[in-house]
């Protein structure tokens, strides 16, 4: 059962991303959207946690939410893939279920 996890909260404001990464199974995928996109940025106090997680899970970030917030693609951690809403839909299809860490 491969799972797509969604995280829509900043890792500085809430524990959602940390808890998601603690409980996501190996090989699962994580999509960062809404305020969750800040978790994709390089050089922050949360970056280390995310970079470590990339060896166990695939991480995606929603491009339209990045653009809205002025988060440039150049500032994203290597290995995180940017998707649009069509890509988000595709991810939900490719995985067996979606787990939203609100």
């Amino acid at each position, binding site marked *: *059962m491969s*799972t797509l996890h969604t995280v829509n909260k900043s890792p500085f404001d809430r524990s959602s991303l940390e*808890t998601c990464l*603690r409980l996501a199974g190996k090989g699962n995928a994580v999509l960062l959207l809404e305020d969750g996109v800040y978790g994709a940025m390089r050089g922050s106090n949360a970056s280390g946690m995310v970079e470590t997680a990339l060896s166990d899970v695939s991480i995606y970030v929603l491009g339209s939410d990045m653009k809205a917030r002025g988060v440039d693609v150049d500032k994203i951690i290597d290995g995180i893939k940017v998707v649009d809403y069509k890509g988000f839909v595709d991810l939900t299809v490719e995985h067996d279920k979606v787990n*939203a860490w609100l």
Partner: protein
Amino acid sequence: MSDIKKFMYVNRTAPYGTIYAWESLEVVLIGAAFEQDVSVAFVDDGVYQLLKGQDTSELGIKNFSPTYAALGDYDVNKLYVEKESLEARGLTIDDLMALKYEDEDDDWAEKDSIHVVPAAELADILEQQEVVFSF
């Protein structure tokens, strides 16, 4: 797709500060009538939902904590509390309500509904689910 699906309700919020805990419990109760294979997880501040001795009388709002005790009667008896979340909050299982159910496959023996599980085990349980409800 089988007739019975594995349903998981994930609770990550404390009670009363927001309504998510209570309205989540309402879904679990209604859902029980649909005879799915139901599990409920309590993670992060969600573990506070199960603290003993809740008394909202001074606030003048409804105390919904007694409703958790009814879950066993609705065959909702797989309640998973993440060990790491409990420990971070300085809590043990003795701080939680003693939720029980009668096991019809074991001569109606009374058993504990709450299972404290480490993150790795909860991750496995989450992997086995088919539908995850979040609140």
